[in-house]
């Protein structure tokens, strides 16, 4: 195992712990995305590029996009104050 892989695994652990401790749901999704990205790099290092492609497309791409849409649907993404004002004025 090279030093590069060890650093990546350290990042993985940091990501996994910080997901559960982050209060903001949006931040958790972003950390989750970075977890998937690091994982896909690790898959390349472990000589399974097919898994890396799938992980990058499904884990980092589609799952997080679905999470974003869900958060928007349940109104969990809070915009800045000015955006809220604009939305109220439009209504």
């Amino acid at each position: 195992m090279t030093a590069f892989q060890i650093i990546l695994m350290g990042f993985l652990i940091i990501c996994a712990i910080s997901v559960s401790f982050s209060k903001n749901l949006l931040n958790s999704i972003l950390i989750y995305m970075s977890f998937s990205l690091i994982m896909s790099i690790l898959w390349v290092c472990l000589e399974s590029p097919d898994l890396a492609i799938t992980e990058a497309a499904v884990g980092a791409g589609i799952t997080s996009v679905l999470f974003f849409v869900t958060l928007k649907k349940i109104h969990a993404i809070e915009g800045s104050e000015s955006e809220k004002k604009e939305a109220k004025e439009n209504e």
Partner: protein
Amino acid sequence: MSKKRSQEEYQKTFSFRFFRWFNGEKDPYLGEVEMHPQEEYQLDPQAALRYEKEHDAILDKVYDLERNKTMQLFHKLYHATSILFCLFLIALLLVTISYLPATGTIDRPVNNEVAKRYIENGLEETGAVNIVAGMILDYRAFDTLGESHVLFVATVTVLILLRLNKTQKSDAEINDRRFEPKNDTILQLVATFLVPIIIIFGIYIILNGHLGPGGGFSGGAVIGAGLVLYLNAFGFAKTERFFTEKTYKWVCFFSLSFYCLAKSYSFYTGANQLHSVIPKGTPGAILSSGLILPLNIAVGLVVACTIYAFYAMFRKGGF
């Protein structure tokens, strides 16, 4: 001799009353029971406020951790047991793992004749240079068929949960337009360059599934991601020109049934020691390895459509 009764006489008998009641011509309460029109119950607003205050006060008292000793004890016990349970689970899993054979030793149960046969005879028997593709789409094609059906069932479930009827759909579309910035120039320009490249890369992964890393699932996921990007940049009006509910239905139906039929044929010939008419081709050529290439295409189509359908249903409740 029966005698003829007059109408008046008949109306006094029991059978007349019974049949009148049976046919529902007479309400037994009407004209018999005294009735008053009832007022609708209205809660006194002051009383409602008082009830709410009382409710809050009770809750405050219950959750007042400084005074409520039982609640305090319960919280402490709750934390202690949760920590103990986590530690117990960690210990249990670690002990279990310590009993597993070490990685890479010869006497591991994984290291048996099946893996040996896959590696030694895989190229000859399946015609695929990529052993993984040969395994998942030839030796274990039943597995992959199940996976494709799991995806299909997942879409159907999401359809049941999130599908909206027509009036709700128009509302959802208006909401979608209002809260989503349309005609984002940066996103559209990036998408114009990226979407063709992403989709061509996905097609490359699918078609090269038997030659290099990749295959139906990864390629389909890449194509699906490209479609989602296109949808985000240009909106539903553009994607509906080539992808509607009908497209999804027919693509999934044809891919899954083609997979079933093709694999049934090869299982039938394989099990009965018959000669299969599907040529293996020369290993390394793009048109080789028998059924693996068409099966890869079928799986890729199902996966790409499923991912797009998921996104469309999450966002708008339909296609």
